[in-house]
């Protein structure tokens, strides 16, 4: 059960990364590699702040803001200096590697003894549920686990709603339009460059928030924690799209979150089954493949068999078994 709680919590934390990738890659069509650096930047800034006794909420905010600044710098490299978007991201990610080392002062900062959002939430819920934790369907779950999961659900829900509202505002719609057709926005007198910079700032702010929460959740920040993250962010976005099969904004946002959670659950199952550790990544890849292919397969089959009847959706289940 704790394994399930852990997978859900990490999945939801990393869904912030998928949301960030969704904004840069799907809405703007920019494969923004800055993410690998900003996830660590969010973690390192928050870690250093927490170590200096700054309020964890402020520390998380500062981490997010640092990520947004890094993202806007990528945007400026791309728009002002006309550097290819992919290369701008690579440059920024490379630079952030040194920045992160500078910020942290070493390559690994332990946070377990400091006050973080995680330790605050745990403390409060421990008083509420007692030291021993609760029994859930026969599994013992600690108060901390419950607190962390609820906290993460609330944060992701708030962020998701805020994003949804934002992309319904004037600025948000202009930004989506920029991603769809920059020529048209320019012809209408919109500021394409500004929209791209804001978009990348937003994307990397989300990613840095994910990194900041991840560091507080796992109890340490590490310079290498961001390496390769962008790939799983992309994977989650695409799994989400395959599962929802829709391209409306709300569905895309929810899809990114679902994709991230599904991915982490699959990893947890692979681990629980005790597969050979060397095969783990291969199994994960196969799982992701199935998650991508099966929903579309069943949708097609359903449509062919009964065009009007609403078929039960649990048909997608062979993935897990």
């Amino acid at each position, binding site marked *: 059960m704790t394994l399930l709680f852990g997978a859900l919590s990490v999945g939801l934390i990393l869904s912030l990364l998928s949301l960030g990738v969704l904004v840069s890659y799907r809405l703007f069509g920019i494969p923004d590699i800055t993410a690998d650096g900003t996830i660590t930047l969010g973690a390192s800034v928050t870690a250093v702040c927490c170590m200096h006794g700054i309020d964890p909420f402020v520390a998380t905010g500062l981490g997010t803001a640092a990520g947004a600044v890094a993202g806007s710098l990528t945007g400026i490299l791309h728009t002002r200096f006309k550097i290819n978007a992919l290369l701008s991201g690579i440059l920024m990610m490379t630079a952030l590697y040194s920045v992160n080392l500078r910020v942290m002062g070493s390559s690994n900062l*332990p946070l377990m003894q400091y006050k973080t959002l995680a330790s605050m939430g745990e403390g409060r819920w421990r008083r509420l549920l007692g030291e021993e934790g609760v029994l859930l369907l026969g599994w013992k779950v600690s108060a901390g686990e419950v607190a962390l999961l609820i906290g993460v659900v609330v944060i992701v829900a708030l962020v998701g709603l805020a994003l949804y509202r934002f992309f319904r505002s004037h600025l948000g719609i202009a930004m989506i339009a920029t991603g769809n057709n920059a020529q048209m926005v320019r012809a209408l007198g919109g500021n394409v460059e500004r929209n791209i910079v804001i978009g990348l700032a937003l994307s990397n702010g989300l990613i840095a928030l994910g990194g900041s929460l991840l560091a507080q959740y796992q109890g340490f920040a590490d310079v290498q924690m961001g390496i390769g993250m962008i790939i799983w962010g992309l994977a989650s976005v695409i799994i989400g799209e395959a599962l929802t099969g829709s391209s409306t904004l709300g569905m895309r946002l929810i899809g990114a979150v679902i994709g991230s*959670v599904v991915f982490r659950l699959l990893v947890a199952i692979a681990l629980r089954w005790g597969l050979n550790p060397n095969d783990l990544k291969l199994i994960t890849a196969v799982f992701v493949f199935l998650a991508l292919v099966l929903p579309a397969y069943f949708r097609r089959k359903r449509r062919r068999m009964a065009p009007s009847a609403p078929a039960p959706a649990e048909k997608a289940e062979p993935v897990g078994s």
Partner: protein
Amino acid sequence: MIKTFRQLSAGLGLIGVCMVVLLLSDLDSRIRPGEEARREPGARRRVALVQQNTQTIFDAGVAGIIAGLAESGFHDGKELHLRKFNPMGDANLANAVAKEVTEGGYDLIISVTTPSLQAIANANRVRKVPHLFALVSIPSATGVGISDTDPLGHPPYLTGYGTRLPAEQAFRLLYEINPSVRRVGTVWNQSEPNSEVQIMDARRYCKSVGIELVEANVDNTGGVAEATDAVLSRGVDAFFICGDVTVLPAIESVLGKAARRGIPTFSIFPGDVSKGILFGVGADYFEVGVQTGKLASEILRGRNVATLPVTDYMPAKIILNDQVRSKLSEPNRWDFPDSLRNRANGIIDPKGRLIESPNAAAGTASPAGETRLASGEEEATATTTQP
């Protein structure tokens, strides 16, 4: 509304199925009232062995642990049910592994490397499963609540061995061999905590004897050759091969470049000396693993973890290389003193044969649980202050 739900049903259904599958596979960790302390005698003990990544050193440590357990009468598949985990350096996977080993009903967790220790210690704060760690440079700097002054100042369920990488010993030996050394070059990756520890030690020692450390940083293996060239062309008397996982894969090219300029190299991995290094002093990680495995067996037999001190254990080994020495541009400057020759565990003669001297003073492994400092450089290790 219904349409929205139908669109989401595939995703939510998949999440639901995954959750059910996960819970079903997790059924055996359920606690039935009154059964918490139940354990039938003679049952296999369940041990989780976690390493952060696949690297020669870690693999040697893990092999040592398994050998140590077997030596003490715990064979996998017989008295022991051993499960190995390796998140391959992936931070999220490491967290998932940490959850799995703390919740999976194991009797003991053994972790290799610092990140594994941290992730598991964080996940283990509630369950408090006995946890033994090894191959950690500075246990007190990992932030898991280990005191740097009191060996018993650790969480009552957590103990292990610290093995500081012997960079300082390596520089001491260099100075012993050739006190006229003024500039030493090295290449390392700043994001490697273990390299950082080595370089900090090296800098401190170099400062105290007036050696200038010429450093270059790399962040991937591809850049090592270039960085080595840059350091060598800045003029150095010797080159330190940092025990750095980014640099080590490119060791052949580093050695080749140094050899072409007739500059001696030294390392903290004695096993690498035969590749063309002048001398190496370092820990025997297999031996560290064996020691850890023995301690693990004591814990499995019921020894209280709270009473086991966190200690440094560094079975040092010195290997010298006369073949390399004879090919240096100024071989006479790099003569090994007789005292060192007597101390060395092995010397590679000019023809490239390794002559072992098992009775060397340095490097005898210490008996279980008692003396933990087996290196010949006792004062060096003992006086090192920890950050």
